[in-house]
């Protein structure tokens, strides 16, 4: 029983970076821009965050540095695709490749280093008496503050998108930038803001991986989570709640396969390592089969550049 609770708590913790990145990309895509550079932005932010944590010892500063790095990378992407109408897919792929190379280069000196405080892992850092409560203790109160942040953010994004006029404008721009322009909304500016916001959240997710979750630096530390976050937003039919559940599912299966490896199950570890990616995609593809849902939620202008007449 207790083991299951701990496992669930750990699943939530390990899914949290995906929640952050997925929500960022969701905001991004709801404005009609696809940023395939998620992996690259997360890697750049991860190394920036790690370097900051290594230098200052402050986790908060490190997450902030990650957000800044992600936002900067996204701003460059935004200038290319929104300012210069470059192809979004090509520019995104380029950003991913660039991020991989750049982070590896900058991070050479940090390879294999660990952050000093091993207690700064995702679980058990509040260290509060509440964390000792049965079941909900580890699930809720034993979590790192970033888990709380991700929960609050999910609610905030859902509220913003579906309950406020600002969110409506964002969705309208993702739906038909031409019509939004005709109504007098600054399409390019809002798209740019959404791209930078998406980048910042991907950045926090990247820094969270290297500073809180790992907490160490190796080349390619993000290990495809940027791509999973992209798939997650799509298969979650751009609904914040589903992004959250999908991310936790990914986290859960990741832990499960570690568990199975540790138990010495007679399956090749490479196959087990595939499991979280496979399971997440399969489950999300199954729940997003409803075409009416996709039609109602998919930003119709996704990936299309906007030319003012």
């Amino acid at each position, binding site marked *: 029983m207790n083991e299951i609770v701990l496992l669930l708590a750990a699943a939530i913790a390990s899914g949290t970076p995906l929640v952050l990145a997925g929500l960022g990309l969701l905001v991004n895509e709801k404005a009609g821009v696809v940023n395939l550079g998620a992996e690259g932005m997360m890697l750049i932010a991860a190394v920036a965050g790690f370097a900051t944590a290594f230098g200052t010892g402050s986790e908060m500063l490190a997450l902030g540095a990650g957000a800044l790095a992600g936002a900067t990378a996204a701003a460059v992407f935004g200038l290319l695709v929104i300012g210069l109408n470059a192809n979004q897919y090509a520019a995104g792929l380029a950003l991913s490749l660039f991020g991989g190379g750049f982070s590896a280069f900058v991070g050479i000196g940090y390879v294999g280093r660990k952050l000093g405080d091993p207690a700064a892992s995702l679980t058990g850092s509040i260290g509060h008496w509440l964390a000792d409560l049965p079941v909900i203790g580890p699930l809720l109160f034993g979590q790192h503050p970033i888990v709380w942040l991700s929960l609050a953010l999910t609610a905030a994004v859902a509220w913003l998108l579906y309950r406020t006029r600002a969110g409506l404008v964002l969705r*309208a721009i993702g*739906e038909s930038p*031409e*019509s939004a*322009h005709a*109504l007098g909304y600054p399409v390019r500016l809002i798209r740019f803001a959404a791209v930078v916001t998406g980048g910042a959240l991907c950045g926090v997710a990247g820094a969270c991986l290297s500073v809180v979750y790992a907490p160490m630096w190796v080349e390619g530390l993000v290990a495809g989570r940027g791509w999973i976050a992209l798939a997650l937003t799509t298969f979650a039919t751009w609904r914040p709640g589903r992004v959250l559940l999908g991310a936790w599912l990914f986290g859960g299966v990741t832990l499960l396969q570690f568990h199975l490896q540790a138990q010495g199950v007679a399956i090749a570890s490479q196959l087990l390592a595939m499991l979280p990616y496979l399971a997440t995609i399969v489950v999300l593809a199954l729940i997003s089969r409803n075409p009416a849902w996709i039609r109602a*939620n998919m930003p*119709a202008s996704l990936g299309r550049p906007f030319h003012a007449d």
Partner: protein
Amino acid sequence: MSEPTAARPGSPTPRLQLEGITRHYPGVKANDGIDLHVAAGEIHAVLGENGAGKSTLMKIIHGSVRPDAGTVRWDGEPVQLASPAMAQALGISMVYQHFSLFETLSVAENVWLGLPRGETLASVARRIEAMGASYDLAVDPGSPVHALSVGERQRVEIIRALLGAPRLLILDEPTSVLAPQAIDGLFATLRRLAAEGCSILYVSHKLDEIRALCDRCTVLRAGRVTGEVVPARETPASLSQLMIGTEPPPLTRTNVAPGQVALSVHALSMQGETVHGTPLEQVSLQVRTGEILGIAGVSGNGQQALLAALSGERTVDRTGDRAAIRLFDHPVGRLGPRERRRLGLHFVPEERLGRGAVPALGLDRNTLLTRDEGVGRGGCLRPDAMRALAQRLIERFGVRAEGPASAARSLSGGNLQKFIVGREIDAAPRVLVVAQPTWGVDVGAAALIRAELLALRERGAALLVVSEDLDELLTLCDRLQVIARGRLSPSLPIADASPARIGEWMSGLWPQAVMADAAAGAVPAAR
């Protein structure tokens, strides 16, 4: 605006004054030195065929296109309309011909986006309902736009423009999809708005409406003003002369004795196109060879489901009777569009771009959608055959296009419609189902399309025309049925179909006794 003198047309300072407006596009002068004056409280018509430059001119007034030369004055002051937001700030509102609604958002959300800040969504929804009730523009504020028909979308556009309390309202072909009573209602609304001091620019090619509604009329042809007249003092012939230079020949219809039953639908029920779409309830109809059956009705009353069921886009499900739809002697309820086409049923959909034609592909490639001439052995394309077919259609139906390779979206609405209708007529169908044959099409093209439909009937084909343009149905059809709330009225010979009667039936009020007779008559096998 409150001064009584300001509300009279021709008062010293026009609300809107255009001088020498010129706008080039590559290869064309869309607007060439256009002058236009609209007084406060005036209903001013802009008359012209498609391609005459009306749309460009309206976009310039609405700030989404900037002129190359010329001045725009607003209340006498020169203004630079650099963006739609600036035009809106001056009080210029526009109802677009190509709708600018957001598909996935609800009606209320769409309207809300067009209003200034500071109002809640709930209050916007209430205002939409109130406005819908008072102006005969009923639409459900909560329903998503993608579930609405063309006519309903136009209502949303009009409501959105009206809620902004405009000082100049631009309407682009607003009546094409309204029922006769609703047109009267709309005109009453527009007259009331004008009396309140709002100026109205009414873009149309419908001469009767312009003569009934508008104070003055500026006529455009090929980007130039060909006349500024008082429409009430003109005849349709003289207006049409200004607009196209010549008058289209009147339609001639010969008497053809109807032959065997070609297409019949018996007690068909079907779910709506979407959750919000109108379902079909016990729909029955028959079309014989050599006759045209018209389906009248206000959009959103089940036309979409009926057309999908007839074309084969949606088939009768396993619980239904596949013989509910018969094509000659074949039960076709479960056959798709391709199989039905092989049996001789061709279909012209309402949406030209995206359904009737692939926008980015050339006309030659677009023949492939319903024709097999361009497909060779083993599924290889035969470019020469496609080009030849497209060229033949261009010549036979007078499609104005650069050539067979022109992209479908580069054609004007009327020309593309001539091509699509032509593509189906050229296939010599035994049954042709046509939706909105001349929606948004100019007078010349509309006359040609209608004449071709009549000619097809004379060659012995069975035609079913679904249209929201009652005048069109009355000139084309032998019989009419009215669709209302997913049910179909009994059939009415065209001689008995007065607009008043059809209008009454459009609200679902047809005599039940007649219906029982018709239901019995609709089942020849039962006799």
